[in-house]
C-alpha cells in the first residue's frame, strides 16, 4: 500500500521535527518548574500550613486537602480596611509615582541617546550603564552618606545657597524614598526604551514630515505610538521589583510613614518565629497583583503586534 506508506513517512518527519523543536523548551520548562512552580507552591504550603508545636515555626502543608485558609483570610481582611491596607496603598502610590518620574526623566534621555546623540551615542550609553557596575545596595548606602545631616549634600546647600537649615533628608521623607526608587531603577527603564526607539525606521519619520506633519505631530503620531511598547516594557521591568523593594525605604528612611509592603513581608518572614504564614500570604497577594500588571502588558503587546501584522 504505497499511499499509506507515503503519508506515514510524512507524518513521521513532521512529528519528529515537532518533537525536536519543542524539545528546546525543555530547559525552560525545567527551569520554570524547579525555580518557579515548586517555590510558589511552597509559599502556598507555608501560607496555608500549620505551626510546629515545639519550635513554634511554620510547617509547610504540602497536601492541599489540609490547607487552612484562616491566616490568608485574615490577611485579605486586613488588606481591605486594616493596617496592611494602609501599607499596600502607600506602596502603590510610591511605585506609581516613581514610575511616572522614571517615564518623565527617562523618555527624553532615551530619545536623545537614540536619535540625537550622533557619534557620541556610545559614550551616553556607557554613562547610563555605569551605575550597573556598582551594586544597588552600595549606591543606596552612598546616598545615606551624602544625605546625612553633616553629609555632602547639606554642605553644598550651605556653601552654594547659604541654606543652613536644610530639611532632614533621611528622617522618614517619602520624597527621598521615591527619589531613591527612581534613582535606583531608572537605567532599567531607559535601556529597553532606547532599544525600542532605536528600532524606529527613519523613513517613517521622514515620510511623516514629507506628508506635512510638524515635528510635534511626527512625534505624537509616529514616534510615540511606535515606542509605546518600549515604554510599557520598561515600566513593567521597573515596577515589578519596585513592588517587592524593601531595602530602599529601609536605608533611606526606616520611618513607619515610608514602610512598603516588602518591609512588612520581610518583617513577618525574618523577624517573627511563628508568623511566617502571614508573610507568605502577603507574598501571594502581591504576586497576584503584580501578575495583573504583567497580563495588561502582555495583552497590550499582543494587540500591538496584531495591529502591526494587519
Amino acid at each position: 500500500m504505497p499511499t499509506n506508506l507515503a503519508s506515514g513517512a510524512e507524518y513521521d518527519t513532521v512529528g519528529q521535527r515537532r518533537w525536536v523543536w519543542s524539545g528546546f523548551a525543555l530547559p525552560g520548562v525545567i527551569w520554570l518548574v524547579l525555580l518557579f512552580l515548586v517555590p510558589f507552591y511552597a509559599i502556598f504550603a507555608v501560607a496555608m500550613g500549620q505551626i510546629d508545636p515545639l519550635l513554634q515555626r511554620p510547617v509547610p502543608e504540602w497536601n492541599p486537602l489540609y490547607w487552612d485558609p484562616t491566616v490568608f483570610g485574615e490577611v485579605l481582611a486586613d488588606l481591605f480596611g486594616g493596617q496592611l491596607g494602609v501599607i499596600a496603598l502607600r506602596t502603590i502610590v510610591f511605585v506609581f509615582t516613581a514610575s511616572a518620574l522614571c517615564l518623565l526623566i527617562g523618555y527624553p534621555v532615551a530619545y536623545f541617546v537614540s536619535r540625537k546623540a550622533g557619534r557620541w551615542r556610545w559614550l551616553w550609553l556607557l554613562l547610563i550603564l555605569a551605575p550597573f557596575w556598582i551594586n544597588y545596595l552600595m549606591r543606596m548606602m552612598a546616598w545615606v552618606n551624602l544625605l546625612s545631616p553633616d553629609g555632602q549634600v547639606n554642605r553644598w546647600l550651605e556653601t552654594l545657597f547659604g541654606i543652613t537649615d536644610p530639611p532632614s533628608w533621611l528622617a522618614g521623607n517619602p520624597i527621598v524614598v521615591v527619589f531613591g526608587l527612581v534613582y535606583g531603577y531608572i537605567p532599567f527603564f531607559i535601556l529597553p526604551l532606547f532599544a525600542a526607539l532605536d528600532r524606529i525606521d527613519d523613513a517613517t519619520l521622514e515620510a511623516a514630515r514629507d506628508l506635512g506633519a510638524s515635528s510635534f505631530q511626527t512625534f505624537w503620531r509616529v514616534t510615540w505610538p511606535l515606542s509605546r511598547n518600549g515604554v510599557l516594557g520598561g515600566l513593567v521591568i521597573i515596577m515589578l521589583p519596585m513592588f517587592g523593594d524593601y531595602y530602599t525605604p529601609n536605608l533611606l528612611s526606616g520611618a513607619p510613614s515610608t514602610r512598603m509592603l516588602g518591609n512588612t513581608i520581610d518583617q513577618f518572614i525574618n523577624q517573627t518565629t511563628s508568623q511566617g504564614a502571614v508573610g507568605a500570604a502577603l507574598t501571594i497577594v502581591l504576586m497576584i497583583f503584580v501578575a495583573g500588571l504583567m497580563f495588561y502588558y502582555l495583552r497590550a503587546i499582543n494587540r500591538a503586534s496584531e495591529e502591526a501584522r494587519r
Partner: protein
Amino acid sequence: MTYHPRENRSPTPRRRVYTRRDFVQRAALLGIVLPAFPSLLAACLQREDGDAADLAIGTPASPVQQPLFDDNPAIESDLPPEEGPLLLYNWEDYINPEIIPLASEALGVEIRETTFTNEEQALAALSSGEAQYDVWFPTSQRVAVAVAAQFIQPLNHDYLPNLGANIWPQLADPYYDQGSRYTVPYVTYTTGIGWRMDLAESADIEGQANPWDVFWNPKYAGQIGMLDSFTDVIALALFRNGVTDPSVATEAELEAAGDALVELSDSVRYNIDVAYDGLPNARYSIAHAWSGDLVNSAYYWPDGVDQGTIRYLWPAKAEGSTVHGPISSDTMAVLKGSERPVLAHMFLDYMLNADNSLTNFGYLGYQPPQNNLTPDFLIGEEYLAEELAPALVVPEDFDLDTAWVQGPLDAETEALWAEQWTRATSGG
C-alpha cells in the same frame, strides 16, 4: 475517604476531555515532577500534631535545669581529638576573624565558619537536618527549645576547665541551663538607650524615673531611632508603660504599647544600625540600643568628630529609675549531629580562655562574661571610653529585680505582638 476536619473546601475539578496529546504532555511533566514525590510524601506523613512542648524556660528568679535524654548522651572523657575541619555555625559577623586562624593553629585543625543572619533561619536549617556543623551559637532564650528538639548534645565538663575557672558564677551556672549541661556562655549584653550628649543633653536621660519615656519626648521627634527588631521594640513600649514582665503582658497592655508606638509614627525610625552607625553619624540623637553596639560605635565615627559625647544607659540599673529593662546572653553549644564532638569541646574551651575572649571582645564589642574582664580593666586597657562604662555588664546585673530576660513567645502570643508591630510600623 475521610477528610480532615480542617478541610472546608472540597476541590472541584473541572471536567474536560483529554486528548492523546494532552496525555503525552502530562506524562512528560509527571516525569519531571515524580522524582520530587518521595520527599513530598514523607513531608505529608509527618503531619501528626505533636504534643505541645514541655520546655524548661528559666529566669534569674526561677532557674531551671535542662532535661537529659537517654538517646542523647554526652561524650566520654579523655577521647583523642578527631580530624578536622571543625565547622562553626555562627551569626554573621559575630566572631573576631582573627580568632579563627589562631584557634585553628592552637587546635591543629582547619576551622570553617558558616553564618546565619537570624535565628529563625538557623532553626529552620537545623530542624531540616540539612545543617551538618559542630558548634552552634544559640541565644540563651532558645536553649530550652534546642534541648527539647535535641539539636544540641550535653557537654562533658572534663574538656572545659576554663568554664569553672574564668566565667562569672551567674553564667557558669546560668538560670536557663543550670549546671551548664548543654551550653557555655559566649557574650552578654543589656538593651537600653544610647545617645549623643552634644545633641540630646537637655533630655536629661540619666535623671528620669522612667528613662524609656525619652523616646516620646516631642523635642527629639525625627531624631529618635529604635532597633528594627519587633520583640525589643514592643518590650520597650511595655516597659515605658510600667509593665515589669513583658512575657506575661495582657492583651490590653499590648494594645496600649501599640498605641504608644503609633504616637511615634512621625518621629521614630526603625533600623538595625541606629546605635553603632546612626549615633556617630548624627542620623539619630537618641537610639534604642544593645550595649555591645555602643562599644562598637567607636569604629564608625567620622573623622574629626568628638567621640566623647556618646552615652549609654540601661534603665533597669539607672539611679532613680523605677522601670525594668532587658538583659540577655548568647551561648555556645555542640550540635548533636557533630562528627567532631571532642574538637568542638576543645573549641568551646579555647573561646572561654581569658586571653582569647579578650581578643574576641576587641573586635566584637559584645562582652564575654569573664571574671578578669572587669570594667576597670577594659577601660584601663582602652577597649572602650570611660563614658561608656554603663554599656558593660557586671555579674550582679543578673541579680537585679528590675532585670528582665526575654523568653520565647508561643505562636498565639507572638501573633499579638506582631499585630501591634504592624500597627506601629504602618504609620497610620
